[in-house]
């Protein structure tokens, strides 16, 4: 009897220890230092030049900088900053709340998995039920786990079947899963292209997107207050890993406040590009041809079909 009790205690201790393991690996991840200092951060990657002729070419333009033993490209519009691009979606993705969920939907959800079944019935497979990963108290709560490969089609079946108010009964236009953010340095429409794939894939199209035309492209922008965060735009983007990423709302706020670690807001960064295009066509041309070079040769992006 005593031995059985001791074994029971041992078992409990083991389970407790094993539940701490994932936390430990998170801590290790946080300790991993960025090798390129300021230029490489969690969401952005710099363009490290490898080929000799590329280095010579950008050196002649005065756009290179040596960090450690690597040569990276500087931002033509911000001479003291290096150029960074949003990482592909795989390395920059978040779990988002399902349609109709507010901040504390976990307290209203009874973990019945009806929404998950409904979404699978529709054939979209957007939702996943949480396990113990982040918060054991939320085991069984649904999340949209990968909007790039499984975007939400806003069919509202999950909302209809949810027996509680966890997924509030709202209209598709009122859904707020996240907000899409376009990286103007990765997007064709900001770099001499005429792409609008995202806008045509968006279920609400011109209600969500606005465009500014000039010689340097179509300049697509998402109105944050309109976007549903459904993720349909990401799949349509011809840039591998997508130039448009759906972010959770708080992450969106954080990122647009200090866009690409330049200390500027997203608005200011975009204004900088527009200013260059109106007042300094030389710089604007260098910027967009350089980004196009990155898109085609590093990201292996398809060229957009004009007038899609």
């Amino acid at each position: 009897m005593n031995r059985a009790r001791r074994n029971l205690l041992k078992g409990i201790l083991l389970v407790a220890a094993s539940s701490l393991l994932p936390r430990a690996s998170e801590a290790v991840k946080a300790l991993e230092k960025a090798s390129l200092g300021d230029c490489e951060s969690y969401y952005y990657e710099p363009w490290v030049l490898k080929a000799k002729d590329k280095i010579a070419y950008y050196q002649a333009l005065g756009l290179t900088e040596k960090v450690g033993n690597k040569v990276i490209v500087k931002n033509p519009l911000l001479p003291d900053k290096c150029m960074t691009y949003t990482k592909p979606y795989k390395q920059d993705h978040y779990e988002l709340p399902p349609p109709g969920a507010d901040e504390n939907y976990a307290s209203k959800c009874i973990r019945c998995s009806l929404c998950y079944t409904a979404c699978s019935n529709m054939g979209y497979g957007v939702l996943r039920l949480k396990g113990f990963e982040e918060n054991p108290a939320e085991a069984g709560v649904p999340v949209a786990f990968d909007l790039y490969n499984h975007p939400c089609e806003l069919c509202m079946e999950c909302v209809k079947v949810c027996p509680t108010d966890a997924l509030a009964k709202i209209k598709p236009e009122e859904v707020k899963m996240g907000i899409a953010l376009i990286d103007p340095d990765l997007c064709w429409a900001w770099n001499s292209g005429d792409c609008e794939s995202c806008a045509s894939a968006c279920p609400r199209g011109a209600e969500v997107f606005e465009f500014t035309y000039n010689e340097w492209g179509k300049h697509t922008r998402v109105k944050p207050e309109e976007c549903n965060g459904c993720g349909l735009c990401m799949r349509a983007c011809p840039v591998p890993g997508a130039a448009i990423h759906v972010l959770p709302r708080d992450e969106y706020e954080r990122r647009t406040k200090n866009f690409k670690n330049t200390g500027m807001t997203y608005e200011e960064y975009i204004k900088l590009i527009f200013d260059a295009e109106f007042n300094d066509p030389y710089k604007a041309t260098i910027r967009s041809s350089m980004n196009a070079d990155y898109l085609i040769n590093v990201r292996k992006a398809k060229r957009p079909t004009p007038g899609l």
Partner: protein
Amino acid sequence: MIEKLKRWIRGAPPRGKWTLARRTLQILILLGFALQLPIYFYAIKPTFHGNVTCSMPLEGSLASSRVFCEIPMFDPWAFVELWGSAHHVILQTVIGVAVVVTLYSILGRFFCGWVCPMDLLFSLFEKKLSLPRDSYHMRYHEASTKEKIVPIISMVAFFLLSVYFSIPFYTTISPIAGTTKFFDELVAIAMGLPGAALGTAVAYGTFMTVALIVNIIAEKVFKVKRFWCKYVCPVGNLYGFIMNKYSPFRIKVEDVTKCTRCNLCSMVCPMNIDVYGQYVASMRDVKDYRCFHCGRCVEVCPSGVIKLGFRFRK
């Protein structure tokens, strides 16, 4: 050897139609939930876009489900906890609860013996006969007041935990819904459905096995039979304390004159009710809060004194 194994699983003979019926129902319900996802579509076409709004007779889990695509069901205990955690209730919830409350107002604590998959699992590992010389919590006995207070305390505790953490607490860790979701998730993983994740299956599997292990340890080490069902689970105890009081579906005592006082009915009761001493001897129907209408006592009675069925009087 095989005979011994069979005895261990089935328990003391005879096993009759009630056991057969309720095991069938339990397995059908578990299978129904396990196969609720549109797996056949995915099996044919991995990029299935079915636009099917409902595909199987059972959807959801034992926390809340849709039966035959139309009938909403909602666990009343989940409702209590939801009210504690979110203070917010919508009509759809109330309809589901009303359906279940109506159903079990007729059937009593029927859920535990006929629906809950944990009964299926617990009974695999438990001692089937309790003998007069077993220790108190292994033997049939009349429930003392102290014994009745423990499940009430656990109900209050789960409610307070729900309020404190603002999550429906027992509903989250519940092995009942957890087991149905566990098998559902296993099927989803096997079929490679997009949302299937091993982490989810591990979580639900943990809820299921923790309850199972707690129950086994309570019986084998601490000599308390059906610890989980009698003292922990608020779902069953809610039905027991409220619905069993007035439900017409019950163990009826029919013809006491035929009783030979063999005490077999008390000895086979999985919930340790003293069926003979407390009810048959005094000619009262079994309305114990513990009784989940499994019908073991009915099957085992050699003289047909007790029956499982409806009785509206008394």
